[in-house]
């Protein structure tokens, strides 16, 4: 279980979550990414990021609404294959539009 950063983060990237995460498990590439990503293997479920996010983009994976369910896998995937995760974000965003 871990927190996940979902669609409202896309193109906002406020990064308040990065500032409060006690275990530094949130990251992104400013030159390439449209959102930030939580490392599910590092997340300790403290919830600091959820409270800090001004977009309401962060929640526990088990509480993701169906429309955002893909973001659990996208966050996990970014730490393996960032290009795959970026394409997935673009696809989800396009679909939402």
């Amino acid at each position, binding site marked *: 279980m871990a927190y996940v950063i979902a669609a409202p983060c896309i193109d906002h990237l406020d990064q308040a979550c990065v500032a409060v995460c*006690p*275990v530094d498990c949130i990251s992104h590439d400013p030159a390439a990414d449209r959102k930030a990503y939580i490392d599910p293997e*590092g997340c300790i479920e*403290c919830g600091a990021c959820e409270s800090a996010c001004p977009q309401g983009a962060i929640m526990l994976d088990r509480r993701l609404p169906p429309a955002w369910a893909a973001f659990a896998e996208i966050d996990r995937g970014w*730490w*393996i294959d960032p290009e795959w995760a970026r*394409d997935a974000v673009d*696809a989800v965003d396009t679909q939402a539009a």
Partner: protein
Amino acid sequence: MVAEIAGMSLVGRPIAGGPRGVRRAPDLADNAVLVARELLSPTVARLVVRPDAGIGAFVAGQYLALGVRIDDRVVQRPYSTASDPATADAHEFLVRRVPDGALTPRLWALPIGTRVRLGTPKGAFSLVADDRRPHLFVATGTGLAPFLGMLRTLARRPNPPRTILVHGAARMEDLVCGDEIAALAAGGLPLLYVPTVSRPDDPANGGWRGRTGRAETVLASVLRSVNLPPNGLAAFLCGNPGMVAAAEIALLAGGVAPGDIHAERYWTAPGDPSAAGPTLVAGQA
């Protein structure tokens, strides 16, 4: 092209299959040394950790992640620093041993000199510069840690404000650092120290002659006894989320303005019934 991600159909994107490659772990290299460990009670220890690059900038009350490499993975937990930024060359942490925890049994057994991982100082739980109003600190257990740093900071001020520290614990043995707190008062800090045990009938508390009751339940009588107007207080709460919530309610009911209440809710391991509320940092396990 159609791809599937967690059951969603993503149309028109070259993302067939899942991510490919090897997981890139975050950069969590060891960057500090455990230089001391002092048992303060059977369940609470003070750990002193010195960063390789020096103590750096921080403010009293902030938290840092302390991590240990276990099976090729860094297991981290956030802890409030008890250090005074002006004088410390290392961070002091109060750590409660959780018998089945993923980290604290390791921390208690770690040889002095072991290299560990220390995160950057974070959090906004801190003193307000030049606030001359009386300060009320309410802690449970190791929630005392940030207040040690704050009290040390206040003690250096030429005219420190009047301070009250209420420290609650289930067992009297966990009312740690009493001598240090007394020394701060003896050194000139105008401090009223109010330790209280929440389980006076526990055999472990035999001989206790101080206050009894949970920290939040003694607040009203403490404030009455010192004749402090509630609208002139800066209140700081730290520790068990249940205590913080109850103390907030008690202070608000007593007339303390919401903006004058600063709270740090301690994180507890997922599934721990003592956890409550979403904003939990600096913790246990």
